[in-house]
């Protein structure tokens, strides 16, 4: 079945072969999604490349090279870098929390020269890497052992704690969802899963009472009844729904979206960018983008299931799920299905950190794809 020369070698591949092995179809899909983003950023700026579309293109190009670079690096190298990456991300996270207490209000990023870095974004990828490496060494039975489960939960919980303190509920949810998904995929016993789900269901009222901030509660309340605060917090949801709905079947046409152009949409260039797309290109355009996203995810699942190493499988699936959670939360949020949480639409929303980490994630996915035939022993720590 597999007759290519590198397949037999399994350990290393010539650089050129790696380029050939890159799934250029996926690259095309990603580029198409990003282009839809450029178009919408151009539109919401009133038909101008400034201030969002042009910087976004530059970020995408940078991200594109990060993707290629990450793709050609051997998956075992990524495996050996997993823990150090996690450590660095955790340190940065602590750093912004400390800086945030010194500064004013919620601090979510640090400046590295001109580059604005959001450690919580970095954490998502690092967690997937580290957790994949940790679970790679565990058999199905070992995953469910209390000690191992405790370590894994600690790896998830510590960063989640720092992010929730920022406070950034949306990213916390994604970090927890990413980690939990990896545990599930690694074979966690249903004896753990079922009681946990029950406990979570029971804990929701308690969390409401003791954990959530007032502004978070307000978001939930306005979500449940947007008209109760039609000119305040409910405004966002109401206006987003109007924007999407008014697009109709085929949309108002490129640059014709009145809701965004006249500033009725909040955060039109970031969290609500997909809303503008729905308004200008209608049901047809929005569905087309969902299909593109679906194809990317399908490719991710396929890569995961065809990789020959547990690390590669978990990594690919983790990256794919991370991408999926972004889309799910943002899509459901702007369409009024869940409360407003600050989660951008991947590849579409304006912003450096998210674009670079998403592209880096796809680079890792591509690396798994290129090195899908590489087998890694259960007790290996990667190569460096």
């Amino acid at each position, binding site marked *: 079945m597999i007759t290519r020369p590198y397949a037999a070698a399994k350990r290393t591949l010539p650089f050129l072969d790696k380029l050939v092995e890159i799934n250029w179809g996926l690259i095309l899909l990603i580029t198409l999604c990003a282009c839809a983003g450029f178009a919408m950023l151009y539109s919401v700026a009133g038909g101008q490349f400034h201030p969002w579309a042009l910087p976004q293109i530059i970020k995408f190009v940078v991200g594109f090279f990060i993707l290629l670079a990450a793709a050609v690096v051997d998956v075992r190298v990524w495996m050996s870098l997993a823990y150090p990456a996690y450590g660095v991300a955790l340190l940065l996270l602590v750093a912004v929390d400390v800086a945030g207490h010194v500064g004013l209000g919620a601090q979510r990023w640090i400046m590295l020269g001109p580059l604005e870095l959001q450690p919580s974004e970095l954490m998502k990828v690092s967690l997937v890497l580290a957790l994949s490496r940790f679970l790679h060494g565990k058999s199905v039975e070992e995953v469910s052992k209390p000690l191992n489960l405790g370590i894994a939960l600690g790896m998830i919980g510590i960063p989640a704690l720092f992010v929730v303190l920022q406070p950034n509920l949306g990213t916390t949810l994604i970090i927890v969802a990413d980690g939990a998904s990896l545990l599930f995929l690694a074979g966690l016993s249903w004896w753990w899963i079922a009681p946990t789900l029950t406990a979570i269901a029971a804990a929701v009222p308690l969390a409401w009472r003791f954990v959530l901030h007032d502004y978070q509660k307000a978001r939930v309340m306005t979500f449940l009844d947007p008209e109760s605060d039609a000119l305040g917090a409910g405004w966002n949801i109401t206006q987003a729904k109007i924007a999407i*709905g008014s697009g109709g079947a085929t949309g108002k046409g490129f640059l014709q979206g009145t809701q965004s152009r006249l500033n009725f949409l909040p955060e039109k260039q970031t969290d609500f960018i997909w809303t503008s797309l729905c308004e200008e290109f209608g049901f047809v355009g929005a*569905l087309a983008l969902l299909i593109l996203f679906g194809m990317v995810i399908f490719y991710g699942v396929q890569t995961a299931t065809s990789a020959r190493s547990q690390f590669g499988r978990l990594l690919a699936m983790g990256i794919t799920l991370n991408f999926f959670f972004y889309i799910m939360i943002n899509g459901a949020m702007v369409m009024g299905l869940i409360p407003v949480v600050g989660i951008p639409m991947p590849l579409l929303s304006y912003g450096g950190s998210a674009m670079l980490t998403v592209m880096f994630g796809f680079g890792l996915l591509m690396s798994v794809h290129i090195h899908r035939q590489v087998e890694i022993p259960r007790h290996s720590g990667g190569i460096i």
Partner: protein
Amino acid sequence: MPLFDKKDKSRYTIFTRRSLMMGGGMTAVFAVLAGRLYQLQIRDGAQYLTEAEDNRVSERVVAPPRGRIIDRFGVELANNRRNYRVLLVAEQASQGVVEAIDTIGKIILITDQQKKKILHDIAVNKKFAPIPVVENLSWDEFSRVNLHLPYLPGVLPDVGETRDYPFSSELVHILGYVAAVSPEDIGHDDDPLLSQPGYRIGKRGIEKTFDKEVRGEAGASRVEVNAYGRVIRELGHEPGVPGQDIYLTIDREIQQVMDKALEGQSAACVLMDVDNGDVLAMSSTPGFDPNLFNVGLNGEQWKALTTDDHKPLLNKVMGGVYPPGSTFKPAVALAAIEAGIATPDYHVHCNGVFNFGGHAFHCWQKRGHGSLDVVGGIKNSCDVFFYETARRVGIDKIEEAARKLGLGALTGIELPGEHNGLVPSRAWKQKTYRQAWQQGDTLSVGIGQGYVTVTPLQLCQQVARIASGKTVSPRLVHSVGNRVLERPKAEKLDFTDDALAKVREGMDKVMNEPGGTAYTWRISDPGMEMAGKTGTAQVRVYSQEEHEHGVTKDAKLDWKLRDHGLFIGFAPAANPKYAIVCVVEHGAVGHPQVVAARQVMLFAQQRDPKGKRAAYPVTAASAEPATSGTGGG
């Protein structure tokens, strides 16, 4: 240890199975997202599109030009003039709002009070909304601001429209004025124009009565606005319907003469066409400048208007109520003739006093008038004659005659605030005081005192009816736009021609026969002779001492305590065309009311507006074919 063992295999199987489960979950989530998209965009798309349009499109009300008010010969009495004003857009004032106002203040005067108001307006409005800084600038001032415009960022010269009354106070009690809309106005009128900032609504006079007609219908400008309400562009424009012009029966030339004649007095005067009731001039003095109310009065001006004892805000013509005094005697005379009491042989002897019920009622002429018939009674205004006559006629007949002449009821003039006056009756007294009518009450009414009260306008209507023998009523408005207002057809008055002729003869002799009470002020121009009747309305109760030793002369009294002077008249005496009334409050000394009435009546006859063709765009005759089109006539 082998590189891979069975444990790896089992976890690969689990991984693949669970990946596919998650793949299924993800597909389900995408299906939900797509379903929600369908729900929002396809199922409810039309509704959300409407909401988006509601967001985007705002209807701005466009005020149509207010209709003009024009006199019978085409003179504009109320019109709209350009309002040169300076607006300030706060967000564009790059040097700051206060600095911008101060800079404007160096070019044109801005008081501290104005400045405070401007800053308040700016504070409560959106930053992009133009706020008026100064209005009603002269062309000179406006040009100066324009000259400095390059140094005035955010300052916007603008030409608006505002109501103007070119003759100032002269016609104020007819026209009324416009002023800012009050909350009560909005309460019973949902016209969107009223909620426009700076909109003015008719508050008195014709401006109020015909406000709906002169207002016109609001136009609309459809504009695209952003989320903050700023106008992005205009999508469509609908100019609305301009207000209709109102054509009055007034002749401004006569009005001017009348106003001058009453200058300095607290007085009311009306000149009327005896045949159709056209009011040719109507004045109540002092007046005030209606333009002040449009621009907005300051506290001092308002206080001056409300505390003046000459009551400039009151239209005394129809809002002032006076005892008619001797001007009521023609009505009593008519009642007496109609009742068959004042026959040609009927005489009353006056010796200066009339004793009744142990009480002495004095005639104004202490010497007495001797024997008088009804014509002589009117000519001499003999009180004793009318005491006796009233006693014999009785209150019921007097009341009936007064009502036929239109007293005690609204004339129906097209102005708000008209008063009824009062013609007393037995039933009225019973109802009001729970007392039976006394003969003494009848005697007082017989000389126009006691319970009876009238407005000057009612007196004018009365004299016009006596002069013409028809049931004419005063009317101010000829037509609204292209519609001639219908007026009740004047019927023949329900008195015999003989009775009316006798009263007219008496009134003629008052002025034109030596010995008549107003002979001094006769018009001697041939063919213009005026007939009339003077009257004095007592405003205080005479003391017992005065009853015994004679009434204190008015000239020695405080102004407020002096009697009112009244006069009714018609001319020409032989063939009446015009009726006039003039009442001067506390002005009985020297009969200024007769002097003024004579002057106006003489001028009116010389000018003869009835003989001139009016400048109305439509006349009742020309409008007829249009209205009777379906009648097949």
